[in-house]
């Protein structure tokens, strides 16, 4: 009997292998996260911890493609932009429903976008700032724009433009939007592939399959394949890995890069490095003097370039990222749309670094202090390595470790000389990182104090440029200008290291960081 079953199973397995399309449905995927989500409101949240799983709960009109480079239809089956670029028309799919079975209407879309674009609605409202009004009629949603906006499709594929059920939200207890958001976020209902069924903060979160999800799987039936996803919160890296190896998890995020090689050779684990938009750099204070009035050597562009040349990226990639990283050539990641592949970056060249420094006012070297995040092994590895590399130039690097909040406060007060920094895009467009890294008017070019009238002009043009080709050339110029001015130390791009059980198929973490479980399945 037992043997017979096994034979049958083997047969079935063989058959299913033959039919590549057969996907197993059902089951619960347990996924280990390093920290829990904080607040499940698409508009008012602040952290990647929320953002990266929100799209499983709340669907958007458009969706990022899995390579992160473009957009694909979402709740809207198609969209078109008027000739002058000032009107965008979207058509909703028919029969859309929220996870509670109620219909998703154009009115919900209007309400959601209006809520998301209110100027006081959280940190993300600016992505929808070009919209002047939204009208809904039947299954059509019309966006009237103040100016043409090439970033709008990407913005509509971003978490904060998620469509929420107006009736349920407004029915939530609370005097104002913020209070209602708090109440609603406790038991959120959206139109994403999953719906929250249980949440024990700091411990676990269970997402149940949304039976009304519109998207179809390979088998022609509605996604998702999984019955449920369970997030377990496991802050310690080792524990997360051990749990995965013991089969208690089917997936674990943020594997330390030092363990990647080991897990790659593990027979039970499928170690995956998903390409990301993450760039790691060191921000420099470009101002002539520091907050305490002392002269800042980093204000000299030759010094900044010298440090960039003296930075052996390949060595850092080996030491810090254990070979998983990739040299950074532009301030934006190579996965960002309009990344210019012809950018050279700063290849390691100690001789050139020395001559640049000799030509500067600081030829005898200097002391420089860098702020690091305490407890970050990567920061420490990186900076101790840089101490040695820059030591060859006579630059003495001092490491000051601060916890994240203090570091951010010092940074915001421009009270730093150097700091480690990492960036990931939230929106599938180069404008976001550019506005932060290169525009003084936003946050003083990531508080470096860097200012370039040329870049400001090019950026303003690109924000209304509807021709992709022209926009690309504007961005090429911006990237070159930025590289030459070197307000930052170019380091490396790093992937998202996710370890999955061998039987997990179809899970994706897109370059923006979103964990997409809709197409994930547990094979036998």
């Amino acid at each position: 009997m037992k043997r017979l079953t096994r034979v049958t199973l083997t047969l079935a397995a063989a058959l299913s292998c033959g039919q590549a399309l057969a996907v197993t449905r059902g089951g619960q995927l347990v996924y280990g996260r390093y920290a829990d989500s904080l607040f499940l409101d698409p508009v008012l949240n602040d952290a990647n911890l929320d953002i990266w799983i929100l799209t499983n709960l709340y669907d958007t009109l458009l969706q990022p493609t899995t390579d992160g480079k473009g957009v694909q239809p979402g709740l809207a089956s198609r969209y078109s932009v008027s000739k002058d670029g000032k009107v965008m028309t979207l058509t909703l799919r028919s029969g859309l429903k929220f996870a509670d079975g109620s219909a998703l209407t154009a009115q919900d879309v209007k309400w959601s976008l209006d809520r998301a674009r209110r100027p006081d609605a959280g940190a993300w409202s600016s992505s929808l700032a070009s919209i002047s009004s939204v009208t809904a009629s039947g299954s059509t949603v019309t966006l009237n724009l103040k100016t043409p906006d090439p970033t709008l499709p990407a913005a509509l594929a971003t978490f904060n433009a998620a469509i929420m059920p107006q009736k349920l939200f407004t029915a939530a207890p609370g005097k104002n939007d913020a209070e209602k958001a708090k109440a609603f976020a406790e038991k959120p209902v959206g139109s994403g592939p999953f719906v929250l069924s249980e949440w024990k903060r700091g411990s676990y979160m269970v997402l149940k399959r949304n039976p009304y999800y519109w998207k179809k799987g390979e088998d022609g039936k509605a996604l998702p394949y999984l019955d449920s996803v369970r997030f377990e919160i496991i802050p310690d890296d080792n524990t997360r890995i051990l749990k995965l190896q013991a089969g208690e998890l089917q997936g674990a995020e943020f594997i330390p890069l030092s363990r990647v090689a080991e897990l790659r050779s593990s027979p039970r684990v499928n170690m995956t490095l998903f390409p990301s938009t993450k760039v790691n750099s060191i921000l420099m204070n470009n101002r002539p003097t520091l907050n305490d009035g002392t002269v800042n050597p980093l204000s000299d562009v030759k010094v900044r370039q010298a440090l960039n040349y003296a930075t052996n990226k390949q060595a850092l990639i080996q030491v810090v990222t254990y070979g998983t990283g990739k040299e950074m050539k532009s301030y934006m990641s190579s996965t960002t749309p309009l990344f210019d592949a012809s950018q050279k970056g700063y290849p390691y060249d100690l001789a050139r670094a020395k001559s640049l420094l000799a030509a500067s006012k600081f030829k005898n070297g200097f002391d420089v202090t860098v702020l690091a995040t305490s407890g970050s092994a990567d920061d420490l590895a990186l900076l101790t390595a840089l101490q040695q590399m820059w030591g060859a130039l006579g630059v003495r690097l001092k490491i000051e470790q601060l916890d994240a909040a203090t570091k951010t406060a010092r940074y915001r007060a421009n009270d730093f000389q150097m700091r480690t920094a990492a960036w990931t895009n939230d929106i599938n467009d180069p404008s976001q990182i550019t506005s932060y890294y290169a525009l003084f008017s936003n946050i003083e070019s990531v508080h470096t104090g860097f200012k370039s009238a040329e870049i400001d002009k090019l950026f303003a043009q690109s924000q209304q440029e509807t021709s992709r080709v022209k926009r690309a050339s504007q961005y090429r110029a911006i990237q070159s200008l930025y590289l030459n001015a070197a307000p930052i130390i170019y380091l490396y791009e790093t992937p998202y290291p996710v370890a999955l059980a061998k039987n997990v198929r179809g899970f994706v973490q897109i370059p923006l960081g979103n964990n997409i479980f809709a197409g994930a399945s547990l094979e036998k």
Partner: protein
Amino acid sequence: MTATLTPAAPAAPRARRRWPKPTLLIGLGLLALLLVAALFPAQLAPFSPTEFDYNAILQGPTARHPFGTDNFGRDVLSRVIYGTRIDLQIALFTTLFPFIFGTLLGAVTGYAGRWSDALVGRVADLVVVFPFLVLVIAIVAVLGPGLTNLYVAVSAVGWVSYWRLTRGEVLTQKKAEYAQAGRVLGYSPARILLRHLLPNAVTPAIVYLMTDMSLGILLGASLGYLGLGAQPPTPEWGVMVADGKNFMATAWWISTFPGLALTLAGVTFSLIGDGLADVLRPRT
């Protein structure tokens, strides 16, 4: 009627010379060993504790690197040797102030009693209702990570134990004959306290000091785990163990050898503590 024989006897056992126990001798021997490593690391260590060697990353123990190398190719043996100074410093500085301050305060309030005792008692109550590690984390978060701030944080909290121990002992000793005698002889309170009471009352505090020293090192290690301890590239044992935790499966030597060093230091202090307890405590 009473008829008693010459009561010369009780003094006799005291006359026997009390030899230091082997525990104390072994402990002191180990301490000497640690001190040598702490004072002459450059002479003992084959390599620099901080210099990278990209050609020797994550090598297991060999003749060249008896304790292997870490993920930067640094020689673990050299780091362990240099770490001795750091960790002995942690042991000393996390306990020195609490010991001196707590003991003196305990002696004074125990002797003077009344409002001073009550006041310090209230403050102590305040300090002890915070879980120690949590309070230290909070203080270190205020002051910033690093060893100096760790010392400040521990000092703010650690004196309470010494205060309690010494105060209790002084309260007992105050009633003892020699203190009463001192008062009868008209000695000043300061003299009675410093010359007579304190030397006797300090014993439990000294014994506790030894335990506290290894606890200080462990505290440094725990903070290192949370990223608030010694800052790199400082070769501190606890932080080395913490840094090595990601390599436990592939490069066990990175965390094991500093772990052994921690144990050795702990055993050393504990042996000295036990030995001192034997020597200092009056036997009944």
